[in-house]
């Protein structure tokens, strides 16, 4: 019996070693691809059509959709930031999703809005709309007050009310850089293949100083180590994860914090899925499914220079909730589109990308967590020597440090949004530190989400938005709690 157990543990250890090797090879490939693509993109920026798009009367209008639920401390900041977008034709639609605080009142008072009669055409089914608010002095701002239905429902409501062919979803705790909308729109206008969705980079807002017009006055790093770890993580995730997948035309995730969509295609695909805790990812997976089924050529692309700054959780408990929610959303999104798994009809998305996400992103934390336990158990029962144990841990940590440093190097090569020398040194340092505890905790949270999913808990865990960088004080607000 003991020999069978020992053989099983040993076998699993070899499997973990093999799995670890495959994951690292894939990451290294993505990193290499990202390096090539980013270099090309940097050259391409020099001759991009940005100014032509800006000046052209042919640039299509875009609706910026801001769904809000109990965000009274941050909502004004994000609306003002959206209204300042440097884009020729856009409307801002704020959807108040049944807030129980003063969110709606603050917006109405600030922009002196008045109630208007407007027909609500329910192209996508949503909860009831209670009213529309508008002011001719700010003609491109419309506020919709509706019954609570969740973020996906609020976005669907915004899609129904919008009259623009494209819409951009922006979180209420986020600040857009002035030219972000223009930059994220440019590939849609330059591509001869229809682009149905396009996403930009999301960065951590905490630490930035904004002026009274909610423009970024000074970029600085926060003091909180948890936020610094997240900054390194965001840089790595956006600059090589997404860029790498985008180069293969196989992008499965666009951040709902800042993404642009072709409205008619989203509506044809059925709109955002209510009840999914990660409606942005589910939407992208479904768009792939919809377009591939229809046999139409399309692109879903990621652009690495438009930037949206968003608030990151600054406590362990909030961060844990966010990460569990993200992992749960990933599992839900793939489960709801399981028809695509390994199905050649869906091309590389069905044959490569989704299997990758299942094997390495969904199961990764489970294998990693069980692997840690097994390795320690092997050591305890004498199946593994100290040398092996230390070597294995050293290898894992050094590979993590390498990836983090590579991410920061990519940032340095490209956009250098953190301008001071001390920023660079701190980021490099935290790229090393994050491998000693932070990454392991993250794995544990994702493992928790995996367990919760199989135990049937599939609800949204709320994350507080503090509005710490804006002009609106520091009192806690709360996002969706459904």
């Amino acid at each position, binding site marked *: 019996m003991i020999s069978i157990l020992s053989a099983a543990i040993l076998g699993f250890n070899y499997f973990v070693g093999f799995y670890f090797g495959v994951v690292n090879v894939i990451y290294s490939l993505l990193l290499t691809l990202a390096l090539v693509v980013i270099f090309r993109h940097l*050259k*391409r920026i020099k*001759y991009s059509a940005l100014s032509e*798009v800006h000046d*052209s009367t*042919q640039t299509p209008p875009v609706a910026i959709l801001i769904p809000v639920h109990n965000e009274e401390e941050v909502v004004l900041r994000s609306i003002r930031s959206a209204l300042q977008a440097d884009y020729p034709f856009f409307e801002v639609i704020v959807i108040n999703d049944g807030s129980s605080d003063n969110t709606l009142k603050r917006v109405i008072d600030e922009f002196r809005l008045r109630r208007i009669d407007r027909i609500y055409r329910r192209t996508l089914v949503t909860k009831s709309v209670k009213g529309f608010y508008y002011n001719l002095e700010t003609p491109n701002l419309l506020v919709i007050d509706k019954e609570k239905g969740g973020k996906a429902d609020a976005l669907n409501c915004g899609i129904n009310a919008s009259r623009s062919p494209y819409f951009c979803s922006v979180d209420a705790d986020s600040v857009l850089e002035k030219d972000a909308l223009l930059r994220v729109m440019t590939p849609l206008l330059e591509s001869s293949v229809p682009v149905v969705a396009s996403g930009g980079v999301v960065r951590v807002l905490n630490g930035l100083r904004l002026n009274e017009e909610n423009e970024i006055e000074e970029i600085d790093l926060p003091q909180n180590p948890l936020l610094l770890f997240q900054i390194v993580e965001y840089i790595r995730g956006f600059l090589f994860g997404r860029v790498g997948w985008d180069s293969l035309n196989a992008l499965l995730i666009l951040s709902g914090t800042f993404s642009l969509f072709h409205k008619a295609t989203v509506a044809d695909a059925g709109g955002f899925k209510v009840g999914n805790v990660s409606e942005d990812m589910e939407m992208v997976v479904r768009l792939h499914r919809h377009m591939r089924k229809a046999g139409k050529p399309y692109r879903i692309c990621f652009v690495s220079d438009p930037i949206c700054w968003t608030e990151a959780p600054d406590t362990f408990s909030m961060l844990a909730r966010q990460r569990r929610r993200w992992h749960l959303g990933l599992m839900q999104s793939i489960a709801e589109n399981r028809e695509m798994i390994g199905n050649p009809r869906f091309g590389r998305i069905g044959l490569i990308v989704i299997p990758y996400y299942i094997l390495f992103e969904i199961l990764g934390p489970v294998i990693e967590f069980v692997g840690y336990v097994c390795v320690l158990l092997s050591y305890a029962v004498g199946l593994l020597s100290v040398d*092996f144990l230390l*070597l294995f841990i050293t290898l894992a940590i*050094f590979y993590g440090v390498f990836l983090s440093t590579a991410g920061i190097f990519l940032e340095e090569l490209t956009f250098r949004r953190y301008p001071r020398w001390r920023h*660079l040194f701190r980021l490099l340092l935290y790229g090393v530190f994050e491998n000693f505890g932070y990454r392991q905790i993250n794995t544990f949270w994702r493992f928790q989400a995996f367990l919760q999913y199989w135990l049937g808990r599939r609800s949204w865990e709320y994350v507080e938005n503090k509005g710490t960088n804006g002009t609106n004080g520091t009192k806690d607000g709360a996002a969706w709690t459904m």
Partner: protein
Amino acid sequence: MQDKIIIIVILAIIAILVTLTVGLFFASILRRGLHDRKYRELDRLRSRYRAMVLEALASGRISSLWIDLSAPPASSAWQAVEEVLLTLMTDGKHSSETAALFAALGYPAFYEKRLTDRNAQARAQSVNKLGKMKNSASVPLLIPLLDGQNREIASVTVRALGNIGGNTALGAIVDRLPHLIGNGLVAGKALETTLLAFGPEAAPALIGRLTGDLHPHAAAIALEVLSRLPADERTISLAAERLGHENPEVRSKALKVLGRPEHLSSRPDLSGRIAPLLRDPVWYVRLQAIRSLSALKCAESMAELGALVSDEKWHVRNEAARALLLLGDCSLDFLIEALTGRDQYAKDSICEEIESTNFHALLIGHLAANDDSLRDKSLRILEIMYTLGFSIPLEEYRNSVHGAPQNGDKAEGQVTGL
């Protein structure tokens, strides 16, 4: 033995990772240092050259400047001079002098040489630079690039030719519209933007191209551009001929060309040719037909517009309602007819448009009119709006006349029946 091999392999991987990490660590620091130095130097050179160029331009001694500004290609000084001159070129005040300076300093020649570079991005960058320098002498070298199959090069070349301008560049793009569109080399919006940048001069070339057999998408692009340029009799005739085109996009764009008040007033026969398209099977053609007719404020089409407020597409319903409202008081009967009909969608669309176009103010004004018929019709419409839940205009009216409660109460009382 096997364990030892595994340990050696892992140690080797760790050694490689450490080397790479340390390399990237120092590369990040080094790159930042080098960049800081490079941009400090560029800033200094830019401000120095900018002052020199502006002074020379002010004193008219621009020809003596080229010796001071000469620099080896790709050096910091070369880059600084180029950026200063491109900024002046964009400002548009000294375009000819700047173009002459560029030529004297050898910039166009440098980038023209790079048009044959094996690297497509280097070629695209050079094309873009030549376009920004508005170097018309480069046009013959740029035109053949439109014939290739590289999308990036084709797109940048179209934009560069648009920047340079001139009939040769325009003719080259227009002649190649079928190739550029048919092979998906340049996006439609990008072509429209570029062609519009040529201004009214683009019209004759586009008209010339439209007279032949043209790819429907290319024809739609040409008509879209023509709809935004001053049009002559030939344009109008060409557009009118394409009202019967089999492609709905072409029909819709042709309607857009015709839907300008000056065209319709000079050619009263056009409204008769547009009207049948109100019954087009494609909704966006019907929409455009309404827009074109509403530009004419053509009372003869009122009956057909009235029918379209019950269209299956809400865009068409709203546009039809808006067109009726633009006709003013003479459309009141049609509005009442639609508002007392059974089609709830039509009623909603009309009420929404009455509010959004501020037509309700006119109706409220009519409540005090001497003309009984006008007053009754307006009252009837306001009553229906109130019962359909479009009560805000009236509530606002009541609030606005708060200082004169009798008037407000009277109007509200009339409408609500209270």
